[in-house]
């Protein structure tokens, strides 16, 4: 854990999606007063994705055990994808065209590409030198104006490790948790690229990173600044949401009646979009009592929380989280690194699942993102030992469909359903075993990792010419 107990601090992100105002054409001041001024609008996508799927071959895998990502398991099944999309998933009788590449998956397993809802790759890249420390704009407790994507360094070698060792095909990069409103997150396809935009997941909604608890009050309290307490955290949060509501009202009024457009505020754009439901709220929060307060704050200001991140005490309020339809993105077994993580237990995920609340395993870590499957397996084992009946396929859902849903991309990826992106991992054994590794990983149907082909192993610019270049890592 590179950041020590500060790692979770790195996990606060504020996401906003509507940030650029575009005056389509400034109205001429000389035109007659009857000429209608052109409406000013906010460009919601000023740094658009340029990602294009790489070419792939129509591919079928048969005789394979399939975890479909939505909790289903098919033994001796067939997965077939073409043109970057899943074409068919089914039992041994699923038809496969005669002229395509067929992989015999005997003894192997297929899952959707793994999705990490909580990563700082690119923002806190390797090597972790201070010149690379770009994940926390720790200069004010409210930095809703920063966007994690503007810090992403595509050459972080961590992306390739997550792909090759972890089968990770999509990930959300969040700002850190130093601030109450940390900034806007970005969702990436895990594809090596020259630019951030070329990794950007097309059409993925933005997220907004918020943080509860120790980190904001420590960072600012130690500077004799507000917030220095949990009640200070809430006070600043509420004041900020109140301002966001006013900002939104001004824009709504302008949309309806025209007149002089409101002054742009980049941070408020993000909060306005969050209030409009266009941006998902990802709230770093450890303690059960604090999560309950955030749930009320969200109701007070009319927004919804997508996911509590870290959420080491979700098990204490799993019923409340289910009632409010909020996901918990948790580690399998982190605890004890700070006071608010003291009550972390390895059965957390299983108790959340058993209460039928949304369960996600996340990493927040450049090492554990390489074995999210193993983290899920540990959590599953601990749940079964306490007598809960949780299937293997459900544990895989914690890493695929559930995070996709919480990130707003489940209509495109996160499960093996016809028409979805062919983000697929072929494992050489059950991915819930410590002895399993990805054998092949496809992103949008393009083979981007193949354990049997050193040429299908990405090597970042940073690693070129260094000892160990191109090694199995």
């Amino acid at each position: 854990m590179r950041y020590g107990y500060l790692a979770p601090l790195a996990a606060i992100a504020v996401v906003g999606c509507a940030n650029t105002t575009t005056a389509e054409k400034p109205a001429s001041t000389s035109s007659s007063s009857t000429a209608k001024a052109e409406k000013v609008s906010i460009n919601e996508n000023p740094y658009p994705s340029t990602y294009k799927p790489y070419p792939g071959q129509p591919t079928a895998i048969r005789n394979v055990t399939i975890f479909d990502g939505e909790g289903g398991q098919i033994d001796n099944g067939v997965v077939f994808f073409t043109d970057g999309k899943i074409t068919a998933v089914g039992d041994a009788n699923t038809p496969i065209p005669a002229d395509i590449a067929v992989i015999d998956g005997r003894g192997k397993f297929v899952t959707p590409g793994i999705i990490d809802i909580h990563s700082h790759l690119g923002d806190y890249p390797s090597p972790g030198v201070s010149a690379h420390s770009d994940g926390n704009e720790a200069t004010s407790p409210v930095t809703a104006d920063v966007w994690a994507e503007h810090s992403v360094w595509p050459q972080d070698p961590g992306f390739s490790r997550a792909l090759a060792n972890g089968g990770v095909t999509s990930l959300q990069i969040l700002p850190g948790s130093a601030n109450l409103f940390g900034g806007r997150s970005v969702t990436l396809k895990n594809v090596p690229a020259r630019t951030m935009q070329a990794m950007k997941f097309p059409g993925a909604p933005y997220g907004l990173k918020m943080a509860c608890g120790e980190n904001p009050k420590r960072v600012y309290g130690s500077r004799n600044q507000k917030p220095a307490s949990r009640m200070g955290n809430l006070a600043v949060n509420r004041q900020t949401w109140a301002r966001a509501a006013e900002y939104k009202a001004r824009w709504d009024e302008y949309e309806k009646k025209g007149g002089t457009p409101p002054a742009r505020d980049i941070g408020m754009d993000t909060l306005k979009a969050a209030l409009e439901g266009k941006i998902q709220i990802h709230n770093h929060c450890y303690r059960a009592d604090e999560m309950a307060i955030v749930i009320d704050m969200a109701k007070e200001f009319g927004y919804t929380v997508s996911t509590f991140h870290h959420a080491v005490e979700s098990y204490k309020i799993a019923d409340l989280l289910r009632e409010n339809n909020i996901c918990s993105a948790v580690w399998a077994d982190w605890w004890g690194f700070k006071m608010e993580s003291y009550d972390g237990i390895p059965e957390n995920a299983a108790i959340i699942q058993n209460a039928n609340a949304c369960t996600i395993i996340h990493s927040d870590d450049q090492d554990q993102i390489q074995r999210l499957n193993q983290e899920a397996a540990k959590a599953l084992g601990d749940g079964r030992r306490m007598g809960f009946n949780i299937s293997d396929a459900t544990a895989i859902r914690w890493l695929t469909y559930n995070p996709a849903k919480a990130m707003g991309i489940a209509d495109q990826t996160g499960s093996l359903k016809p028409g979805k992106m062919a983000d697929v991992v072929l494992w050489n054994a059950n991915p819930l075993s410590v002895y399993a590794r990805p054998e092949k990983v496809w992103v949008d149907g393009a083979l981007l990792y193949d354990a049997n082909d050193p040429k299908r192993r990405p090597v970042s610019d940073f690693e070129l010419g260094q000892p160990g270049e191109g090694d199995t890592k």
Partner: protein
Amino acid sequence: MMKSLFSLSVAAAALLASPALAQTVAITGGKVVIGDGSAPIEGGTVVLRDGKVVAAGSGVAVPAGAQVVDASGRWVTPGLFAGFSRLGLVEVEAVNETNDSSASRGEFSAAIDVTPAINPKVSAVAVNRAAGITRAVVAPIAPAAIFAGMGAVIDLGDDYNAVTRARAFQFVELGETGSAKAGGSRASAFLEFRNALIEARALANGQRGVPAHPHDALLNRQDAAALVPVVNGEMRLLVHVERAADILNVLKLREEFPALKLVLAGVSEGWLVANQIAAAGVPVIASALNDLPSEFEKTAATQSNIGRMKRAGVTVSIGMINDNDAHRLHYSPQYAGNLVALQRVPGASGLTWDQAFAAISSGPAQALGVDAMLGSLKPGRAGDVVIWDGDPLELSSAPVAVMIDGVQQPLDNRQARLRDRYRTPQEGALPKAYER
């Protein structure tokens, strides 16, 4: 011989209820792992007497009068040995009052003896005990100098007698961390190291009547005295180092200080100089899964590092160096399992299952020179035995019984109590505070 007809846990409870020392226990029918790198033995028997292993393997007779624990369908192994930790030094890492791992504002360095800081009742001891860890190497964190002080080997028993071997080694930082402690360069760190050992040698000479060192001594007397057994080769020197060039420079220190008993820790780039490490006969306690250039000194890091060093003949085991080392030592079997997985990755180097298990049992004991008393189920070793519900390296497995020095240990801990209280999150007839 009283044959237990009860389930294992009942038998375990019975064991606990009776005085465990001065009695003979036979654990029968399990898949027995000796821990020395040999293959598991189906249907083996482990016999403990007076807290020590008497015999383990197939064809071992159950002594008359022995209490028998039926481990059929289970795995029986030596307790796991955490090859590097800060266990017992920390309750909550970020709560300074509960964190005794480092004295960054103190006056001493090499003279620090970690033992008074070890609290056998920190929550992490019970949690890791329940996960099958029975012994741990405990090293202090370096204060404002390259020398961290003297570490210990401890047991994780549920008592106040944690320290198996105090002052088991001196710990020193000679990579990036050492450079920073020495003012900002490795040259300065190595000079600080040489100077300290020269002063220690002078002090030792002075004690023997040889004229003492002249006036410019930098070390206080306690720190210099603590290094005397290091320079004399009576105490192991555990060196944290990652970069290949740094590793070679550390090995070279023996040209000037030939008695040094070196052990290397971390060693992420060890595979690049594996032959030299093997030739030097220096054991390594390595990070298992470092594969990122998280620091420049780990540029060549790969999960194949341990496998490649092993193949080159290095005595290598697994430690968690600066890696959740106060709370999550229970990652060590997972790490070992990952090294087994590498055997099936083309181009990678892993360990066999037998080697991997040895890397978290007898391996660290060997590196620390305590393998004649700890770390395996060979006769004469401490009766540290774990009975598992499955393959101990597999993610779904957990201990069903843990013995330390032949004493059955409780597997309860804070986490288990929280789990039981919140199995159903809703309150019942009374608030949760009444459920226990």
